[in-house]
């Protein structure tokens, strides 16, 4: 597949609304699977109240503050303790505002966000199955607007 051209016109993708809702924010993009526990190791181990990505294996997001971002990733990987980590992130206001996944959501993040939705009463809007072209198009810093029907609009920033 050829690399999609980027202009200033918004690009629109359609995914599956997993946790429905509307959200707008700035994209934080990783082209490699997102390791939840490694990314939030400071929260997991020392209870830090930080949204900084600490995964040294993720060069695109390392040291990037992910709080309130629209996290755009292929999918997540990592320990099953990520389920409770997602609950912690949501509870403490450290989570991204929304998740946009190129592939299908996996069970670990799905369960964490389901439990956060019902037990903490806070939802992280999530759209999955957006496809790899979505991930090739969106860049960190772009404005991403998610609609309830799973439509995701990317507005490139000038610097990108």
């Amino acid at each position, binding site marked *: 597949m050829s690399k999609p051209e980027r202009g200033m016109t918004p690009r629109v993708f359609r995914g599956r609304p997993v946790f429905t809702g509307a959200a707008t924010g700035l994209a934080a993009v990783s082209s490699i699977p997102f390791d939840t526990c490694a990314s939030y*190791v400071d929260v997991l*181990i020392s209870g830090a109240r930080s949204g900084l990505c600490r995964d040294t294996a993720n060069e695109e997001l390392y040291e990037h503050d992910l709080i309130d971002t629209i996290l755009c990733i292929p999918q997540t*990987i990592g320990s099953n303790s990520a*389920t*409770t980590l997602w*609950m912690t992130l949501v509870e403490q206001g450290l989570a991204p505002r929304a998740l946009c996944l190129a592939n299908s959501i996996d*069970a670990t993040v799905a*369960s964490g966000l389901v439990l956060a*939705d019902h037990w903490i009463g806070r939802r992280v809007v999530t759209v999955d199955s957006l496809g790899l072209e979505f991930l090739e198009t969106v860049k960190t810093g772009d404005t991403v607007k998610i609609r309830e029907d799973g439509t995701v609009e990317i507005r490139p920033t000038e610097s990108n």
Partner: protein
Amino acid sequence: MRRNQLGGQIGTDPIFTPTSHTGRPPPPMTAPFGRPRLTLSTEEQALFDGQRGPTLQKTIRAVVDYGEIFGASRLIPLRGAPHHAVSWGSRGIEPLLRLYRDLADAGLRTYAPFTSNPKPMDPVHLPMDPDQLTALEGVFGFMEELERLNLELGMRSPRDWSCACYEPEMGNTPEFGDYLAWSESSAVSYVNSVIGARSNRNPIGIDMLCSILGKAPYFGLMTDRGRQATWLIDVRTSRLHQVQVLGSAIGLRVMEGIPLIVGLDRFLSRTAAISNGYFKDLGAAIAGNGGASLIHIEGVTPEAIRWGRDLLRDGFETYVVDDDEIERVHAGYPNLWRNRHGTPKRVYLGCPHLTVEQMREWARRIIDAVDAVGGSKIGIPTSLFGSPYVRSAFKARHPELADRLKELGVTIPSSCPMMWCSTPLEDAELVATNSNKTRVFTTARFFNDDVLTDLIVTGELSKGVG
């Protein structure tokens, strides 16, 4: 203290491969993209509407939401008994403990008494110095609360912590066709494959909620179609290789596909492979290296006996495993020790927990090797991990071996070796193991049984190995 090299992956089932983490791939998503609705019975709908209180309402709503994400069509009643993966009371599980507290405060209990994965520590049978104990108590400061809540919610007894809960001595053994909502990958693989029970690999939290409801979402490995094989694994080796490497080769290839393995029945009888842990370790290695939570073995596992190659789905892929392939896979294992040529500090055997027969075999092997060189002690701290029930049975059936192991200095803890290796203890570095699961999820190095035996006796890796 060292910083955990795997970024705090405390837990029992880290999966570093991009899979669904349910044990098999989800069906491809095609438009229209709306989440399919799960059909509820009248009784379930009443729970959903809150007619039996807000906690049960949240419970069923969470289970339904989770099921709908993965395409479940309905809820299905569970049989057998639950087994849960959460066994580590670290800071990271605080939100889950609050959820457990909610359930307990509402007077809810699981549909049947449950067992749980092994604890991270066993101070009685795996002694630590005071600094180590203090450090681990800091990491796992919520263990007492987890145990208290588990017992309130229906845990069978304070002894029932083991990943191999299905072993006859522990007795959480489901029957063919039972629907379950288990979460520990090796246990899910075992009961699906060897027994023919039906469980997806459930995430932590969802397992407990399903156990409270007594029902689970019906999708994936619970369905006939979800259990069809997508891979034919043609084993053409000249002999029965160490199971852990064969499992790793298959897991790395099929990821979350379902393998039907042919050619293994040349070497295996079902009875022997159960007692000597072959199936247990094969499934754990496949699940750990890939993610598949069901394997069929031609002529051996119950569904393969019943349906044979009809289990293969149209369009299946084929993977041939021969002696060269086993060697290639083994040679590709990385050495993750920071001091790559350091001398190992511990030998850990039993991930998943050993069977009684495996304990007997290792005891015989170690004793014979020590006797052969006229020794009186082993050369490196060595532990054989097994459930408290298996340990008791081993001591009862083989008292002379158990006594001799104790004299030599071999310990038999009932904790989780993998979790211990994931701690920031300095001593967690430089662990040698024959477990592929431990190899994948920690910095421990994998060696074959002969190398490990030599290491146990001498305390040194043989020349040319390190």
